């Protein structure tokens, strides 16, 4: 095993340069280190000007998603050991505007996420005195895989359609909409359908499938989108054949 490993970081300092440039750093190699540990070593001991996001260090917060050797990855869950002898290339998530170094502007995702109302929508809200909305284990199991999403946005960085058509709602937004659609306590399916059925919604997806491949939580957004397409098509045919039945 090597004593050190070279980390190449795509840096962008808007006050100094018009385009990002690569910068090389030598860091000690430890078998138990993740890529994030190497970045923190650089920040703490080599170059304090390096900017990147991180928080939990255990694959839960979804903050430290970056491109590692060209692939979207959580840097806190990617062992350096798997990438030696290197060099290891770290870039900001693809498809998002870069604010500085490895920090992207995620406003587009947040705006789109709000449009699909990712919360439990009720036609009439019950009072606390009426008790909680109960759910069986089977009902929970129906949406649980989609509830695992940590908004790390690796799926967006893996999706060439989002890069080509920035208006596309994107994998995580649609998967999270599906999470609430499948929740037995929710009544907001139709309102979400209006947003998801738009041109930039489910129909913009051409099923590249990489969003599901890179998802660290096995959410399968590609599957969610295809199932939603099937649902939308069935609803459309139903409305055509039985116009008075409602959706």
């Amino acid at each position, binding site marked *: 095993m090597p004593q050190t490993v070279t980390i190449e970081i795509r840096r962008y300092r*808007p006050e100094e340069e018009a385009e990002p440039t690569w910068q090389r750093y030598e860091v000690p190699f430890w078998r138990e280190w993740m890529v994030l540990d190497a970045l923190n070593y650089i920040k703490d001991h080599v170059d304090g000007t390096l900017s990147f996001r991180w928080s939990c260090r255990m694959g839960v917060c979804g903050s430290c998603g970056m491109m590692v050797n060209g692939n979207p990855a959580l840097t806190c869950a990617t062992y350096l050991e798997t990438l030696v002898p290197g060099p290891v290339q770290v870039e900001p998530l693809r498809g998002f505007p870069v604010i500085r170094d490895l920090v992207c502007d995620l406003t587009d995702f947040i705006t789109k996420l709000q449009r699909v109302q990712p919360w439990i929508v009720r036609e009439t809200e019950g009072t606390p005195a009426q008790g909680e909305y109960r759910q069986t284990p089977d009902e929970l199991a129906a949406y649980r895989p989609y509830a695992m999403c940590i908004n790390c946005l690796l799926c967006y960085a893996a999706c*060439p359609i989002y890069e080509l058509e920035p208006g596309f709602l994107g994998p995580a937004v649609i998967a999270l909409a599906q999470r609430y659609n499948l929740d037995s306590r929710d009544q907001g399916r139709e309102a979400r359908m209006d947003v998801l059925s738009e041109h930039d919604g489910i129909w913009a997806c051409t099923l590249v499938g990489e969003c599901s491949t890179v998802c660290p939580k096995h959410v399968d957004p590609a599957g969610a989108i295809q199932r939603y397409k099937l649902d939308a098509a069935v609803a459309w045919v139903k409305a055509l054949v039985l116009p008075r039945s409602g959706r």
Partner: protein
Amino acid sequence: MNPAYRRHHPKWYRARMPIFWWFRKAAYFRFIARELTSVFVAYSSVLLLVQLRAVAAGPEALARFTAWLHLRPVVALHVVVLLALLFHTVTWLHLAPRAIVIRLGRRRVPDVAVLLGHYGAWLAASGLVVWLLRL
């Protein structure tokens, strides 16, 4: 972009999507190949319609069409079409379990069963076509 941040940052950097982005990864290349081979699906559909038209026009028209099919360049083209159709079909069938979730009671039917169901349907349809051609 959030306008509130603009005052503190001269500009964001947005990378341009390269024209040959589909060479970045094998998965992207497979995706583009799958999409492009749909042209061959359209071609074979048109070919079938032309063949039906020749059948309807009588034995002479059918003989002319069959003779055209036996030309070497046409045979070579159709070998390429067949390979493209097989690639398109297989890649599409493998995506089917992504879209179709079947539940039997509490259990979800495994993806492999959905996939085998599609292959079974493909074989049955092919068998039906062979049987019709032999009539």
